[in-house]
């Protein structure tokens, strides 16, 4: 198990370095001068000497690998640099935004797991209507963009029925109910797509497991249907579903950007958008770091859970 863990962590570290390097290159490849000019864009009288000075001041004239190494050492020590625009520390800018995006991701993942298990297990054991609903949902959410669904949710539940606030965020420390109400609709909008893929995966795996020889043998021992479904079959079917879930996390983060916009939640997605427009590369990279860390952590977690669920995987 320890060797298995070490390998997973090493893969995670490699992915982190590779992805951040790729993004770094992509954002800085235009060269210091071009970046400085776009930062100074509003001051139309900025002459070439101003541009050069700005580039120099921000350290943009050094070779990109050198800039990356400097930046990377900073990341490891918890320093993401300063904003090109406001000169505030990037970590400070992100600090107030992270709870919002994390809330969205956490609540939507929780909803995904609960609904996927309910629908996936229901479809595989009861069949009939539940199975039809799940299969229809799987097609429907692929065909309906998540943000369009979010818009409809706003129209119906927030503006029409006035059950939830249409926009804004309430910190969990202020009021738990207010917090939940403020992120419930956006989380649903994100979760529903995940439920379709994770739920279908779980259904297929459950149907498959329930036909296995060992399930018949367990039945022959007089173990109740409930114990067979939830204790034995669900555990064996969970690993592939978890793998799909970990892939969905990346999509969830992407979906969060748009959903934050629709519900006017001041999260990281909104931050990346506004910083991008302003040309504030360090802040955008900060958001990239956060997202890659979430993706890597979730992947390692899922690998560990799968290792615990399926003893055989620990060997391989």
């Amino acid at each position, binding site marked *: 198990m320890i060797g298995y863990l070490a390998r997973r962590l090493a893969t995670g570290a*490699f992915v982190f370095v590779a992805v951040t390097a790729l993004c770094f290159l*992509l954002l800085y490849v235009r060269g210091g001068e071009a970046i400085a000019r776009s930062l100074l864009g509003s001051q139309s009288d900025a002459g070439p000497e101003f541009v050069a000075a700005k580039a120099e001041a921000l350290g943009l004239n050094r070779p990109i690998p050198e800039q990356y190494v400097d930046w990377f050492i900073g990341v490891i020590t918890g320093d993401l640099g300063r904003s090109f625009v406001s000169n505030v520390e990037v970590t400070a800018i992100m600090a107030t935004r992270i709870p919002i995006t994390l809330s969205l991701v956490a609540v939507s993942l929780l909803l995904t797991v609960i609904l996927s298990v309910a629908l996936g297990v229901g479809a595989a054991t009861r069949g009939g209507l539940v199975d039809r609903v799940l299969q229809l949902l799987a097609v429907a959410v692929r065909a309906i963009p998540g943000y369009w669904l979010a818009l409809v949710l706003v129209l119906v539940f927030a503006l029409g029925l006035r059950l939830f606030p249409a926009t804004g965020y309430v910190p969990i420390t202020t009021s738990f109910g207010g917090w939940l109400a403020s992120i419930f609709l956006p989380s649903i909008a994100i979760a529903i797509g995940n439920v379709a893929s994770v739920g279908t995966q779980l259904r297929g795996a459950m149907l498959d497991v329930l036909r296995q020889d060992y399930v018949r043998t367990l039945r022959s021992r007089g173990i109740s249907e409930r114990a067979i479904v939830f204790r034995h079959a669900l555990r064996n079917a969970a690993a592939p579903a978890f793998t799909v879930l970990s892939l969905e996390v990346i999509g969830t983060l992407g979906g969060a950007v748009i959903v934050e916009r629709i519900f006017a939640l001041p999260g990281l997605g909104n931050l990346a958008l506004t910083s991008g427009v302003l040309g504030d590369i360090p802040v955008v990279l900060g958001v990239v770091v956060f997202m890659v860390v979430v993706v890597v952590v979730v992947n390692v977690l899922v690998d560990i859970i799968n290792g615990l669920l399926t003893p055989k995987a620990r060997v391989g």
Partner: protein
Amino acid sequence: MSADLTGTASAAGTGGRPGLVRHLLRSPLAIGSILVILVAIVLAIAEEWLTPFPPNSVQIQLTNAPPFTTDYLLGGDKFGRDILSRLIAGSRGAMVGVLIVVSISVVLGVVTGLIAGYYGKLFDSLGSWGAAVLMAVPGIIVLIALYTLVDASMEVAMAVLGVLSSPSFFWLTRTLTRGVKSELYVDAARVSGLSDARIVGRHVLIAIRAPIIIMTSFLAGTALAVQAGLEFLGLSDRQRPSWGGMLTDAFANIYRAGWQLIWPGLALGLVMAAFVLVGNAVRDALQGTYVKPSRRARRRQIVQLLGDAAVTRTLGTRAAPMAAGSERQDSGRPGQEPLLVIEELRIAYPRETDSREVVHGVSVQVEAGQVVGLVGESGSGKTQTVFAALGVLPEEAIIAGGSVRLDGRELLGLRPAELVAVRGTAMGYVPQEPMSNLDPSFTVGAQLVHGIRAQRPEMGRRQARHLAMEMLARVGIHEPKRTFASYPHEISGGMAQRVLIAGAVACEPKLLIADEPTTALDVTVQAEILDLLRDLQRERQMGVLLVTHNFGVVADLCDRVVVMREGVVVEHGAVAKVFHDPQHEYTRMLLDAILDDVAPRSSVPRERRG
């Protein structure tokens, strides 16, 4: 954002099937979807000539004009522009974007996947690492940065999206290619000197094209969604009408004219749905659809095929426990009839419009303390017969007729909960294939304990553990403690079979049903397992119903024998009598097989039972 489609699409199996196109053309949903896509393509090509108004021209008096009332057929937007014209004009950007994403993603993913899958080794490692990295890239942030920081055009951004979604195709192609590569016909092609390029072109590409078509159509839908999403965020050339941009305009106007969301949403939804439904239709054409029938649907199906009685026998009664006397030997006379009586048992499986019977009125009896062999080749229905007795037939099976009585109590028609109580305590079951009959996720000990506690709810965890350990020692496992804590993949087949026997007899059933208990084992282990079964049978005076294809085993262990062929009992009697004076030609043939010392099916140890 690069939604994982590998799981769903790779399940689609390999190889196109002749008549796929014909199959698609029979599905109205598929035809409709293809039409929608064709319309979108035509609009995209000819948008300049089809828009009723120039998409950017403004008529102030038609600002927010409601649909179907003015010259603006679908209404006017908040700037007084014609929504219909903008929808038509927006189709070009949408379809070009989809085309870019799909072509880059497919070419990149399929080519690298083919190389990695076909040549393996270094190519495989490189490709896999690269795919893992690309999949962790926060795509939407990168795309936002491209638009805002690098000033990229929509076309460049879509090309990047194509690269970011290529891992799905890489994994799919790699997995499928590896599968095809190991097929015998590819080996044969290689041996006969075909070049790699020819092999890939002729065999591999043909085998993988259908799953790729499916995944491509799903990706087209995703690409459209992502593109419109970015436009919705305001990241596009505002001069070019786009569906996502129209959503933004409508969203900004949501309090005044919320209906404006409908049109761009409808356009996006229709085209996305069309892509997805085409993919679905291809998949369904290849592997069919399966909706698990509800209990009610099963009931209806069985009634229709075989009548009410079959429903009760197969699914159990819904009513309270069966009243005494509703069946002849139902009450009060245990001991007067044999321990197990299977009478005129008929088992059928539903087909499209009718049903096919596989067991045609089989009767078998097992007296207490007696060992009865049930002999026949595969497909003779012997396993189906014992599964019916245990109540573990496959879900689709229908018990068309007959009776199964244990100690005088009718088992067919019991409610599922009552049947659960009978299993384990009254009957134990030893399966054929030891390794596939242990739950891979639990230790050997844990699953034994689950079984024991299910049958003996009064037992505490510690007591059950103790009993399980004792049973492991009893079935001849030398280090019970170690085996108890082992996972199934850590023990040998022979050991696994001992564990399964321990599980079957732990709660001292009166009847043991063993289904080919030695077939899957090494010859040396077979004799040991048979010895163990014989010892346990004598020690506990169990009745045993032993399914086998091997008369040698029958001679070794059984008192009586029942010979089955094609779902019918052809001969039965005391072992000695049947051995010395077989009446049926089929029995003689089976007997000859042991004289030759060749088990009739030793060459196919893992075939499916029938």
